[in-house]
């Protein structure tokens, strides 16, 4: 994701720390979101373990939205993170049907829009899982490691390959194989036809 020029110059540093998975910064931000949620929770008195769930999902949504370029350049990263947390908190409350204490409509418009963008449907997810199990054992393990963010060198060491280039080529072949399986799945073809 390209860093956008923005009136808050520190925000670009924060965004790149988050995108580069700077662990220290991410844990610090995580804590700040937690304190923000505790503040929101003063009147609501949501159970701590449920508040932790809201925290975890807020952080995940923040990472996903940043990845898909939904960050509003006019605010700081922290403001954006807090607006996502607020959105998630109120949504959680709605699902618990405790509207008499809080109202979704009390959020600003931009907070309401700080929502997750998934990018694929439940059906596509199901097809992915199904066809994934049709890959060879070797392919499944390579893709699992790649999906978890391991480098090709680490994967080569784990799986006993000579070098990372072997892993890179194998990963590409396995990914293409998976794409072919999905493409040839008749249910998926019908789904795409109906969708269009």
């Amino acid at each position: 994701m390209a860093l956008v020029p923005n009136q808050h110059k520190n925000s670009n540093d924060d965004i790149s720390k988050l995108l580069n998975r700077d662990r220290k910064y991410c844990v610090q931000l995580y804590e700040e979101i937690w304190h923000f949620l505790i503040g929101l929770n003063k009147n609501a008195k949501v159970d701590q373990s449920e508040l932790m769930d809201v925290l975890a999902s807020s952080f995940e949504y923040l990472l996903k939205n940043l990845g898909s370029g939904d960050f509003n350049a006019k605010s700081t990263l922290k403001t954006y993170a807090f607006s996502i947390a607020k959105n998630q908190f109120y949504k959680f409350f709605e699902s618990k049907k405790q509207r008499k204490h809080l109202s979704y409509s009390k959020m600003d418009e931009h907070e309401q829009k700080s929502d997750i963008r998934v990018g694929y449907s439940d059906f596509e997810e199901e097809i992915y899982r199904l066809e994934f199990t049709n890959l060879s054992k070797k392919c499944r393990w390579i893709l699992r490691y790649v999906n978890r963010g391991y480098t090709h060198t680490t994967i080569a060491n784990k799986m006993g390959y000579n070098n990372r280039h072997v892993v890179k080529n194998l990963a590409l072949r396995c990914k293409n194989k998976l794409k072919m399986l999905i493409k040839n799945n008749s249910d998926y073809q019908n789904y795409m036809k109906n969708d269009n």
Partner: protein
Amino acid sequence: MTTDIFKYLEGNDSPKEKDAFEKRMTSDAAFKEEVMLCQNINQFIEKKVQDEEINEFAKEIHYDFLKRQKKRKGVPTYSWYAVVAILIIALGIFGVWFEQNSIHRFYKSNYRAWQPGSINRGTSTEAKYSEWLEAYEHGDFEFAINEFKQLPLEQQTDAIVVLMYACAFIEADEFEQALNILNATSTAYSTMLTGEYNWYKGLCYLKLDDDLKAKNAFALLLTNNKYGTLASEILKKLD
């Protein structure tokens, strides 16, 4: 042909090949449709991979955060009296530690995640269970924990699968969670694995320093063919 389409979409074609492709797309509607389908698959898979990486990273940050929270709660405020008290207690703790160390050495040398060996691995239609089992046997306990709820209900209530699920939590050092699982399982299900269930419960209680409950669990194993000798050994250390 499909491989060629994916190659084109990934930008790996030469300019000549790319031109030929684009010309064909403008004149052949069916081919264009196929390319669009492949493009959808590409985008969806890239997104899925990205999301999985994000999920894993978010979990790691969450655990780091929890560790930090626990550490913070344990920080004492120092004073001279506290320092003296700590010194006195430290001597007593050393003695206990020396004894406890032998118990933890016992745990280390006797604990292994339970392995299913040759069991019915399901038919080809039970792909999820087969994959789950494979991941567990390969030591991918994190996968086993995360994907347990995706298994068919029949497997989620199977005593063997539940035992492996509990062992996955033990591997992740989540002993309380493992105990919740082992204790929640009905004895009617676990009859054939009663020995195993009590053994792992005992080990979890040991790690949680609950000697009384550990003793109770190991005491049930004294007449067990597989675990009797080991249970007797640990009970002597706990007395």
